[in-house]
């Protein structure tokens, strides 16, 4: 079978560490999995602007306001080049946006938690961007060229965001009693959700094996999660904050930190769209899209007119 031959050839390229580029042949399933993952990644960058945008107006210093604005700007940028990268797989951004606003496409459910205090902004920088980096560092070595390159770029900026969040959280943990309380409270609320960002246990993750075979992902959810936990335990200690897991314990044998049971019920609930802010996020994004329709239409109409004028002139 020619198809099996092509598949073998494809797998050989993957195994040899070659990057797959848009014009290369690829299995339809590979394409579909990438579209799903990449667009979900893009949607997440976009929705991620909302919980952070929630604190721009109220940021407690001009510097912090600028930092937050720059971060949100970066996220819009990530969204843009992730959509572009996804478009190399032969699907239009409009369709992708439609799938997530009105269809079944997902975004990272972490953004369905509310940012209740300014410390949440710092905790997001540290934990959520921290988790994202672990994931994206791996994805930067993904077999699909455009996605790999997008993640290289994203990782660089995310590292900066994580650093800023961590530093400010450290300052709060070392600040007034109210600041300390706020910082610890944020970590208490964001710790488990950040662990959930790596997705279900490997045993409950049906796509994993295939994605790893194709080197779209290079590690399993549980491996990534463990890597994250090991790192965060040290970082938390360094700034004097406590992670809200009484079962956290260093395992001499494995050289890793063991941790308690993740509240999977909550995870599945939030994934199903039952997060405290889920409905609000979708409402906000749909409103943005729908209220912007006249603007996009105007831009298109104007571009058509100008094109016509140019054609006539030439």
């Amino acid at each position, binding site marked *: 079978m020619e198809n099996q031959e092509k598949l073998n050839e494809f797998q050989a390229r993957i195994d040899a560490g070659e990057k797959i580029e848009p014009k290369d042949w690829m299995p339809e399933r590979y394409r579909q999995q990438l579209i799903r993952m990449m667009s979900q990644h893009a949607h997440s960058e976009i929705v991620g602007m909302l919980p952070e*945008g929630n604190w721009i*107006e109220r940021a407690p*210093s001009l510097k912090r*306001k600028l930092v937050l*604005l720059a971060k*949100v*700007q970066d996220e819009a940028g990530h969204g843009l080049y992730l959509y572009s990268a996804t478009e190399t797989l032969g699907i239009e951004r409009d369709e992708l946006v439609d799938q997530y606003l009105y269809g079944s496409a997902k975004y990272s459910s972490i953004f369905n938690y509310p940012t209740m205090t300014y410390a949440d902004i710092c905790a997001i920088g540290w934990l959520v961007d921290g988790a994202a980096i672990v994931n994206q560092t791996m994805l930067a070595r993904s077999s699909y060229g455009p996605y790999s390159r997008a993640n290289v770029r994203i990782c660089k900026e995310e590292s900066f965001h994580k650093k800023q969040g961590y530093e400010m959280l450290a300052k709060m943990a070392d*600040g007034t009693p109210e600041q300390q309380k706020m910082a610890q409270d944020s970590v208490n609320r964001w710790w488990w959700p950040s662990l959930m960002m790596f997705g279900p246990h490997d045993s409950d993750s049906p796509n994993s094996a295939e994605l790893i075979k194709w080197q779209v992902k290079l590690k399993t959810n549980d491996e990534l999660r463990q890597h994250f936990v090991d790192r965060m335990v040290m970082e938390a200690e360094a700034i004097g904050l406590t992670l809200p897991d009484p079962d956290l314990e260093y395992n001499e044998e494995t050289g890793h930190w063991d941790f308690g049971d993740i509240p999977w019920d909550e995870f599945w609930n939030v994934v199903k769209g039952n997060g405290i802010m889920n409905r609000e996020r979708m409402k906000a994004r749909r409103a943005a899209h729908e209220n*912007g329709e006249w603007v996009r239409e105007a831009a*298109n109409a104007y571009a058509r007119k100008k094109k016509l004028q140019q054609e006539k002139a030439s």
Partner: protein
Amino acid sequence: MTAETKELTKKEAFLNYLLRLADDRLILGQRMSEWCGHGPQLEEDLAMANMALDLIGHATTLYEYAAEIEDEGHDEDYFAYFRDDRDFTNLQLCELPKGDFGFTIARQFLFSAFSYFQYERLKEAKDEQFAGMINKHLKEIKYHLRHSREWVLRLGDGTEESHNRIQESFDELWMYTDELFYMDEVDDLMIKEGMGVDSSEFKKEWKKLVEETLSEATLTVPDWDQFMMSGSRNGIHTEHLGHMLAQMQFLRRSHPDAEWK
């Protein structure tokens, strides 16, 4: 019951001058940042976050210099977080709610056009540090002007709906434009010292740019002779500013002893 007026010192005038420039930018940037995540398309989310960042960045630099000039131990945050709405001297134009995308664009265009002419002259100010920052900001102002002008054209000459919407925005904004050219003893003294600009000098140029842009955008130029708002340089504001400041300053004021930089 007689009112006494003290002679304005050069230092006071300069401080006021810096604060007026900074307040405009902080308040307009704050409004712009409300678009975060709510723009009509991703490219504009990016562009508006970028403009907000520029505006608030410019304000920060100006406040820093104001703190230096004032020399009373304040920092830039003091001016942004610990003054009340009667102390803010931003234009009412800048504090109006963000409205729809067309309103935001129309306002940005009017303001950026003014800033452009103003900064083109201010960059010659006889204060190296001040002239230096003005020169640096000018590059970004040119981008704001170009970006907002292009959108005025697109919306004005786009669809019937977009035409009507942005026309209405210009109509609404018009009575706030005269304040751009307000001048008082602060300006007079700054001009005398070679540090300020006489905005009447470029009013014609500004009007011309505005009129030509609106005309190219197939829009009607509203009546210049209508009633015009005034008072903001003396701290008279609409009711919108107070609500914005409540949000902006709340956290910082709630923890006056905390460090947030």
